[in-house]
């Protein structure tokens, strides 16, 4: 199955939801008026894009309609698409693992799919013939280490672990030493899920990061925030607070195979300028895709 097919398959629900409704709206309105804009705004809001971003998008849309003296409601769809692409493509970037060694730290709140995503990421990188090692630094949640270990075995990569309850920074330290000794290309660090409101846990992330900086100075770093596509406006708060303790380089948007629209990505990109790099579209090892803004929006509107 090619990339496009898989992406389409994963996005089917999303696309159906958003475009059906937009088409519905466009058909039911003969001209462009406030009511039409209101309906469009409603569609954006129900995709979890959030009020502020939705309003902003609609305002921009209104301006463009006025500037271009548009009178045909169907031209709105094209404009809206362009608007969304523009938001998402600004400073587009993808997972950068070109330089070895590279350390990927995966962070996020509880239950968003960090460990599963790491399994998938490891698989993705391994297929590029790179040497990968995992660090089981979620030493808090019951059986999190076992879960990651199963993924490591599935993918066929090494894992560095200690016992449950040990210091995550110590696990990462061990992993970095192992990475150096074994000449690893990419080290992926799992971390415990933590609500961004837990101050001391957020501090712990800083410590982990410091260990990496100290032991592997100059290594390429990726810090990925995993977001659940089902999440509403709180995702913005998550992204914001995690940014304060970690230099987030990108987002992994998971669970896009459900009915959730994942619109919050647009709000986050618009407000915080954090790009989405990968999307999770299923439970299988291959169900992780590179996020491409254009394709994402194209697929939404197909």
């Amino acid at each position, binding site marked *: 199955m090619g990339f496009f097919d898989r992406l389409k398959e994963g996005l089917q629900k999303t696309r159906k939801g958003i475009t059906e409704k937009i088409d519905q709206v466009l058909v039911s309105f003969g001209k462009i008026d406030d009511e039409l804009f209101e309906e469009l705004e409603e569609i954006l809001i129900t995709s979890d894009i959030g009020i502020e971003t939705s309003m902003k998008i609609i305002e921009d849309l209104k301006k463009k309609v006025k500037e271009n003296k548009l009178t045909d409601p169907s031209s709105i769809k094209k404009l809206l698409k362009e608007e969304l692409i523009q938001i998402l493509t600004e400073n587009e970037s993808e997972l950068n693992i070109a330089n070895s060694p590279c350390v990927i730290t995966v962070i996020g709140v509880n239950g968003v799919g960090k460990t599963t995503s790491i399994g998938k990421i490891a698989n993705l990188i391994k297929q590029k013939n790179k040497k990968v090692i995992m660090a089981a630094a979620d030493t808090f949640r019951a059986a999190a280490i076992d879960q990651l270990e199963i993924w490591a075995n599935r993918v066929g990569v090494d894992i560095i672990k200690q016992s449950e309850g040990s210091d995550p920074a110590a696990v990462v330290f061990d992993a970095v030493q192992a990475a150096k000794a074994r000449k690893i290309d990419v080290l992926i660090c799992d971390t415990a899920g933590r609500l961004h409101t837990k101050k001391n846990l957020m501090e712990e992330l800083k410590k982990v990061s410091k260990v990496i900086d100290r032991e592997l100075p100059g290594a390429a770093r990726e810090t990925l925030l995993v977001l659940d596509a089902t999440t509403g406006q*709180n995702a913005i708060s998550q992204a914001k607070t995690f940014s304060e303790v970690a230099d987030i380089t990108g987002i992994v948007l998971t669970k896009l195979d459900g009915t959730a629209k994942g619109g919050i990505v647009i709000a986050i990109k618009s407000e915080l300028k954090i790009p989405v790099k990968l999307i999770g579209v299923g439970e299988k090892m291959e169900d992780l895709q590179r996020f491409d803004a254009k394709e994402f929006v194209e697929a939404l509107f197909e």
Partner: protein
Amino acid sequence: MVFEGLSNKLQDTIKKLRGAGRVSEKDVKEIMREIKLALLEADVNFKVVKDFISKISERAVGQDVLESLTPGQQVIKIVHEELINLMGSENSKVTFSPRPPTVYMMVGLQGSGKTTTSGKLASLLRKQGKNPLLVACDVYRPAAIKQLQVVGGQLNVPVFSIGDKLNPVDIAKAALEHAKAKQHDLVIIDTAGRLHIDEELMDELLNIKSSVKPHEILLVVDSMTGQDAVNVAESFNEKLGIDGVVLTKLDGDTRGGAALSVRHVTGKPIKFAGMGEKLSDIEPFHADRMASRILGMGDVLSLIEKAQEAFDEKKALELEKKMRTQQFTLDDFLDQMQQLKKMGPLNEVLGMLPGVNAKALQNVDVDEKKMGHVEAIIKSMTKHERNDPGIINGSRRKRIAAGSGTTIQEVNKLLKDFEEMKKMMKAMTEMTKHSKKGLGKFKMPF
């Protein structure tokens, strides 16, 4: 950032709608727009918001405005009450089967917190005298069974597991037999997380349901869920017929609008709230707290509610009488202070009082610690001293300071302020002899 913007707008709207003894249609329309935004920002589903707003608008128009409130506040009060009504319900407690074992089945999306909640529930209900058995039916996610085993181990609650090679339906059946044999009167089945649109896995839940006939099916919902909460809840309820909801991860800063959405589309009560990572972090669901959280108009709400509750009429009348007759004692003062404290952080309360400019107070930091000192000082006095502060001489002051852990200077200051306050009251009551509005504007000694 987003919310602050909304909050300021709300304040402006409320201010605009002044006077008038009754809530007019225009009042409702203006304020409802703000409420709509607040609910949407809290992730309440769009359709649910629409339904809710239209229902409330009908109810609100023409209502009498309470003396102490503005029409805008009155509408918010109605909205808040209705939110509590909607989310609260009498049958929000879990029930037990008359013929044990009682079986609970935990269902939900991936990552909503089923396993942790199962453990918390077992722990909570064991405290109520149950003998629970946890059942590991998540045969899909790597190490899910191990996770439940670890949780069970931490709680010292037995976990039934026969590996991940068997069908969950068979595991559930075997667990029920095991529970009967081992005299467990409560069985909590932890199922695998699944998407509500995954028909195969949803059918599996249905099969577990028909083979073990759970007494309650509890849907575990992440409180951070967005607009999609309605689809999830509706699907699970339609397919399985859920009996209740457990809301998780409420220890974060989400406004939790999903609670209202889920309640609205399923009509099923929210029974518990997960409040943290420790296995004791679970509480019964409180509709009133949730309503305030979703509405997010904390400041306005506290004014409306607490002002009514804390300062109950009778006490106010009594107090006024005392002030008029110059019998206001340090005990009354303490009492009043405690009532004030009940209303929330003092600088917020002050900002909410009619006639006080909220903006001017923005940088005023009322020292709550100092209030605590005042309280301690008064409490260190004898009954006699409180009724007649005039008798407090040097050695008494020394004793009071030592007893309250403060300094003599602080005691002196309190007594001086109190005297001044009494003088002010006297002047005031003479000024407004027959008016009830003279209350509450005197200077407090903190």
